[in-house]
């Protein structure tokens, strides 16, 4: 018995040895293959904003299924992270296209230039509204940008009227504006790394800030301080950074009807039986209002294309053509169904022309 077992063990050990040899061989082969993999890439590679991700992936999938090209690969890295990868240089180990939920920054453009990405084309793909939503169980909020600013800023103009800033003293919405309900201020929203947060700070917070004439005047005299007081959100628990997962915010809104949540329009669009968008400056956040520009907290979404890769990576031109086709980004296109707010027809035609000519961006 014992002897048999011993033999089994030694036999197994022998097999293990064989396997080990094979494994080492394979590992060696893989390392040798390292020269081969740099030779080509037969799919388009995209990186960038998580806000654009649902739209870019939809186009990519359609493109992959209806053309003879491979489906493009799309990484969700955030706008800033995508730009960094995109601007790292040219060559097939860098992405061809980056998605951005804001316009390229001057510093990013310069970094691109200095890394050899000399020519890129900017494509505006449509608009996204930022909604401030609450549960259907709660009464619908009707806010002004000033209310939003006063409720969420870390420091606000002195309520007594002197031209100084004080730590935000408001705890309920009613204190901010007597027309609002008497419930605690509790808003869940994206963290500072998010493009949605950038846009919210700029459009809603700064917008509300500017309603104080003397603060608006500050912009001319002391831009730094203006930005600091207008964009810093409070950290005493009234504004809750809820991470990048917008579905989580929607679930929490259901559990706590007194709270508000900040996220992109597509999430409201998919959940409009559960949540309602607050009215901002008298305008409700629906498709038509964002499309015609009357809802003020909306931002354009962009794609940046590396011109040097067009014609080198197979399928680039065709993918761009699909993205800018009427069936994709048109008024009744499939991107509109996913919650992208299309641009007006003339603007589409204009951007479409830029894409065809691949006119490089000049900043």
């Amino acid at each position: 018995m014992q002897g048999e077992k011993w033999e089994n063990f030694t036999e197994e050990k022998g097999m293990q040895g064989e396997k080990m040899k094979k494994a080492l061989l394979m590992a060696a082969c893989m390392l040798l293959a390292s020269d081969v993999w740099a030779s080509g890439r037969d799919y388009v590679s995209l990186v960038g904003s998580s806000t654009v991700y649902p739209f870019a992936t939809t186009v990519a999938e359609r493109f992959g299924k209806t053309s003879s090209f491979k489906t493009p690969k799309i990484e969700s890295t955030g706008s800033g992270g995508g730009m960094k990868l995109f601007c790292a240089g040219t060559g097939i180990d860098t992405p061809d296209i980056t998605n951005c939920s804001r316009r390229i920054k001057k510093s990013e453009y310069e970094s691109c230039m200095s890394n050899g990405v000399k020519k890129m084309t900017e494509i505006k793909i449509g608009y996204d509204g930022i909604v401030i939503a609450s549960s259907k169980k709660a009464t619908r909020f009707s806010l002004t940008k000033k209310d939003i600013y006063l409720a969420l800023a870390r420091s606000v103009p002195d309520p007594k009227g002197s031209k100084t800033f004080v730590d935000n003293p408001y705890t309920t919405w009613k204190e901010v504006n007597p027309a609002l309900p008497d419930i605690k201020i509790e808003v869940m929203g994206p963290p500072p790394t998010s493009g949605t947060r950038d846009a919210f700070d700029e459009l809603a917070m700064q917008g509300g800030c500017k309603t104080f004439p003397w603060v608006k005047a500050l912009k001319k005299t002391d831009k730094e301080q203006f930005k600091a007081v207008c964009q810093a959100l409070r950290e005493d628990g009234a504004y809750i950074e809820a991470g990048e997962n917008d579905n989580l915010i929607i679930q929490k809104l259901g559990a706590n009807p007194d709270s508000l949540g900040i996220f992109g329009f597509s999430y409201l669009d998919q959940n409009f039986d559960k949540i309602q968008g607050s009215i901002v400056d008298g305008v409700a956040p629906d498709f038509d209002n964002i499309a015609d520009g009357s809802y003020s907290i909306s931002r354009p979404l962009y794609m940046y294309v590396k011109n040097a890769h067009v014609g080198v990576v197979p399928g680039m031109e065709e993918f761009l053509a699909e993205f800018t086709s009427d069936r994709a980004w048109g008024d009744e296109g499939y991107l509109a169904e996913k919650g992208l707010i299309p641009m007006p027809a003339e603007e589409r035609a204009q951007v479409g022309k830029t894409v065809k000519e691949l006119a490089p961006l000049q900043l």
Partner: protein
Amino acid sequence: MGKEGCKKISQASAMEQVERNLARRRRREQRFRRLSFSAVVLSLGFLVLLFASIILNGWSAFLRTDILLDVHFDSEVLDVNSLVNANYGKLVKQAMRERLPEVTSRQDKREMYRLVSSGASYKLQEMVVADPTLIGTTVSMWLPADDLTDMLLKGKIERETPEEERAMSDKQIQWINRLVAQGCMELHFNTTFFQAGDSREPELAGIRGAVMGSLFTLLVTLLLSFPVAVATAIYLEEFAPKNKWTDLVEVNINNLAAVPSIVFGLLGLAVFLNFFGMPRSSPLVGGLVLSLMTLPTIIIASRASLQAVPPSIREAALGVGASKMQTVFHHVIPLAMPGMMTGTIIGLSRALGETAPLLMIGMVAFIVDVPGSITDPATGLPVQIFLWADSPERAFVERTSAAILVLLTILTSMNGLAVYLRMKFERRW
């Protein structure tokens, strides 16, 4: 006499004291037992709650709503020379019109077309390209319904909510009711979920791409980390001299096991991607990074199992004239192998559940095509769960839970295998 009495009294009081203490000690033990027992019950309770919520959320993803349509492969629509670019959507729309002939107005028709998935036309395209003789025939087949239709049938869109707050119109619900009554709309087992890669349309999304990506990644991890880790453990345990250097190596290995996994991801980005220029998002790089992460786990487990082999076996082997190498390879390693394999499997199952390092090397991505080799772009199962959990479409909620169920099943079976191996080959001395 007096002395003896005194002793007796003190003995009695000692007994009394002991008895008093005994009751207290027993109470204490009882309390401790109850507390620890309730801790176990509490943790089991949470586990059951977790599983129940995942299963309740996820089981419905294994079913999918299909619509029975009679598709006429019209030779006027399908041009034999460009079968890929033909308008298959038109065939689906035509079949829908025949299925619900009472729908006439333009607006209504558009609403009706929304009941069927955009994937239906891909399926027709696939069929025709594979077999062009179908052109001109009429085939009756089940085609996938749209995710909203699916959600309605599964009761995740409530029919009671007023029409303007519901994602589907009254008319659409009416049509769906009719189709169900006619037997032309049914819930079927969702094979797509196991056969397809990722998709933006929930009804077409599957986990095969992610599972294959995870498999390739684990394969690379296994092939690299197992031999290296076992060789390291054997050298350190059996051959290496005990000095400052080996102590340093040992301390570092133990420290490596505690390094957060995202750090290995950063390392992978800097070394494998930027320095060696390996392909981004590939299971090859993922496997390399994860093997760095699992190496210390396997080394530590392997060393422990080598230590557990009694010295008498080594001495006996040396005593009958075996060399050091023969002793180790003929006698020590076979006895330590079960422990090493257990350590490997546990290390691998940890690697399987890892997302953070993959984020840095581009494996958190939308990839539709199922990867076929270790250099194709791929994601992993946990990454797929993360991506679906963040998708706005409601139908992805159940798919997220279903993917978690698949991941848990794989993990449980891997750990089960580890337990089995230990039970089967474990020897006691």
